[in-house]
């Protein structure tokens, strides 16, 4: 049945929240939501818990109906036999909707548990009340400060929304995206999806002005036909990255006990990808990598790359990695070669594309020569995008002592992006220096640059995003 869109909006963008059943020692559902912009209430009967809840400064009521204000979102964390009562209370209170963290329903395979779930679904459907879950981490809204984990940020901005059937992966993708400079505007961990399902969520995000890019983790579908149609309507406007969990026989056995999902042959999922232009991912890393390439670069308009490596060995490795993904490394224009040839040190270096340029831009960082290279490549008509590798393993120590040298290099990359409008991705492989490279990578992230830990991951992400934009172009 179609979900009430206004109530779903209240549920996912709440202005008032009640947490039912918060418990010690952590009172996580209350503590996580301390930053919430509107009124936050606790509903708890247990006097032992109430004392601590009030000591922590939260306002507690014994029953939901006693809360003096309208409630948009009820976060329900009570033991499973109590859930139907809280659902009934929420309906009586006419709340926007619920997110039910409580687990132990149909996913257990127990008959009683399935019946309990059926009762909840019946109540909610009769009342037209959306429920996120059960068996999920629920709702994250960055602007509103509603959090499904203490690891997610609160604040303005964010163009990416992530929806997933797993709390671990939804929170994982959200926090990992944050870590590479991508604020996530919404997260929806929807678990068993028995009242509001994946088709409702993708339809909501399709129409949501706070969402420009969507990441999806799925194990199975409640309404595959409607999801397929909604996805088709979404991808021409907003890229959607889909990670399908349960791709192997063993994985499908795991999805059965995790979310009771039916098995569909991978060939059919691949058809879904081909028909909708969704961007496939096979892990949380691949999903976040694709998000980086989508959010931190401009839309690619072709597959011809300038590959900028520091050393000869890397120039070979980077060419293979991007070539394997079907991307092109063309010869540059004669004019470009003339310009660069005037100053480029070809002893232990090359500028034919791929570049091997450390000897020319100087181990100590000669930003004047780097600037000339970037100017010439930026003017070249044969190039659709640039990949820049830092050989961070070599330079980590130097950059640690002289962070300004990396900043100068990053200035050149920024300049290239501004001048040309071309997509630019960077690769920072730490080698044996990975600890030293972490703060250096953060300097790159701070510039809003896409930065990948390996050529292979960069190549996969960039090629998938290029494929997506080709798909959009072909769709006209």
């Amino acid at each position, binding site marked *: 049945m179609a979900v009430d869109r206004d109530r779903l909006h209240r549920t996912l963008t709440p202005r008032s929240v009640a947490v039912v059943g918060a418990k010690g020692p952590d009172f996580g559902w209350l503590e996580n939501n301390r930053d919430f912009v509107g009124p936050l209430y606790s509903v708890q009967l247990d006097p032992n818990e109430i004392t601590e809840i009030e000591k922590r400064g939260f306002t507690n009521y014994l029953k939901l109906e006693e809360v003096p204000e309208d409630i948009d979102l009820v976060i329900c964390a009570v033991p499973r036999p109590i859930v139907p009562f809280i659902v009934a209370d929420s309906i009586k209170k006419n709340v926007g909707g619920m997110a039910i963290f409580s687990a132990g329903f149909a996913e257990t395979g127990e008959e009683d548990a399935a019946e309990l779930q059926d009762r909840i679904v019946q109540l909610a459907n009769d009342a037209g009340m959306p429920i996120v879950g059960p068996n999920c981490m629920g709702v994250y809204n960055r602007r509103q400060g509603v959090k499904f984990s203490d690891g997610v940020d609160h604040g303005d901005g964010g163009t990416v929304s992530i929806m997933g059937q797993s709390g671990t992966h939804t929170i994982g993708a959200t926090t990992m995206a944050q870590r590479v400079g991508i604020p996530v505007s919404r997260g929806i961990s929807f678990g068993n999806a028995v009242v509001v399902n994946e088709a409702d969520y993708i339809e909501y995000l399709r129409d949501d002005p706070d969402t420009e890019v969507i990441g999806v983790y799925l194990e199975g579908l409640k309404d*595959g036909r409607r999801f397929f149609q909604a996805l088709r309507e979404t991808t021409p406007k907003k890229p959607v990255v889909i990670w399908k969990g349960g791709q192997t026989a063993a994985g499908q056995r795991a999805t059965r006990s995790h979310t009771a999902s039916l098995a569909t042959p991978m060939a*059919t999922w*691949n058809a879904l990808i*081909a028909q909708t232009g969704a961007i496939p991912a096979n892990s949380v890393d691949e999903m976040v990598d694709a998000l980086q390439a989508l959010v931190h670069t401009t839309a690619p308009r072709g597959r011809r790359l300038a590959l900028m490596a520091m050393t000869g060995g890397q120039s070979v490795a980077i060419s293979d990695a991007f070539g394997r993904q079907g991307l092109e490394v063309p010869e540059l224009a004669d004019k470009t070669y003339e310009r660069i040839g005037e100053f480029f040190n070809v002893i232990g270096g090359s500028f034919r594309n791929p570049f091997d340029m450390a000897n020319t831009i100087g181990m100590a960082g000669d930003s004047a020569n780097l600037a000339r290279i970037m100017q010439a490549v930026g003017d070249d008509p044969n190039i659709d995008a640039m990949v820049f590798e830092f050989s961070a393993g070599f330079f980590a120590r130097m950059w640690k002592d002289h962070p300004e040298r990396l900043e100068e290099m990053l200035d050149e990359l920024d300049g290239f992006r501004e001048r040309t409008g071309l997509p630019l991705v960077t690769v920072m492989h730490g080698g044996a220096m990975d600890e030293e490279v972490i703060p250096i990578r953060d300097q790159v992230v701070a510039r809003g640059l896409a930065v990948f830990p390996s050529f292979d991951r960069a190549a996969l992400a960039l090629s998938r995003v290029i494929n997506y934009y080709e798909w959009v172009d072909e769709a006209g």
Partner: protein
Amino acid sequence: MSDGNGPIAAARADGRTLLTEVESKQLLHDAGINVTQARLATSADDAVAAADDIGYPAVLKVVSGDIAHKSDVGGVELNLGDGDAVRAAYDRMMSAVAEAAPGSSVDGVSVQQMADQGTEVIIGTTTDPQFGPVLAFGLGGIMVEVLRDVAFRIVPLEARDARQIVREIRGYPVLEGVRGQAGADLDALEAMILQVSEFANEHPEVAELDLNPVFAYPDGAIAVDARVVLAED
């Protein structure tokens, strides 16, 4: 759905989920899909009359819910040039089937046009528990049986999906034409794929559909065998 008195209703009335070839072809023909005409005949005279009507050369195929592989039991007679040939083939088939598959219930024979041999492809649909009808396309014969060289799309397909599914199979060069052999009419194949997609989309009661083989010609394509299986009621 439209078939208040069509083949689907007839099968349901009999408690069958498997439609005969004649019923399947009628259903697909009504949906505008290019299939060879097939008519049920229950006697040699019937068969000759039907062949006179459809035109020669004709094909006879045994119609029996008990026989899965018709050619194995002498249940297929090809390239029958006139009424005498049809009559002789009918008698030959009845005794061959009775001998090779004794006890099978035989409803008669289907009388069909003999289509010229073309490049064999298959177009089919199955039902996925999550996505509903899914369309499959591949080269026919050994390519599908041994190499599993089949591509899939979720129904309903768009024009782009039809274009892609034809080009996705490894055997696509065969359709383009290789070593002087004429290629297949890709536009006609794509059009037929879209018709089958539309048919499956509008008939959720169809659990499975097989057009196998479809003969693809340099100009046009036609399904020469068809099988429709309904979902359990």
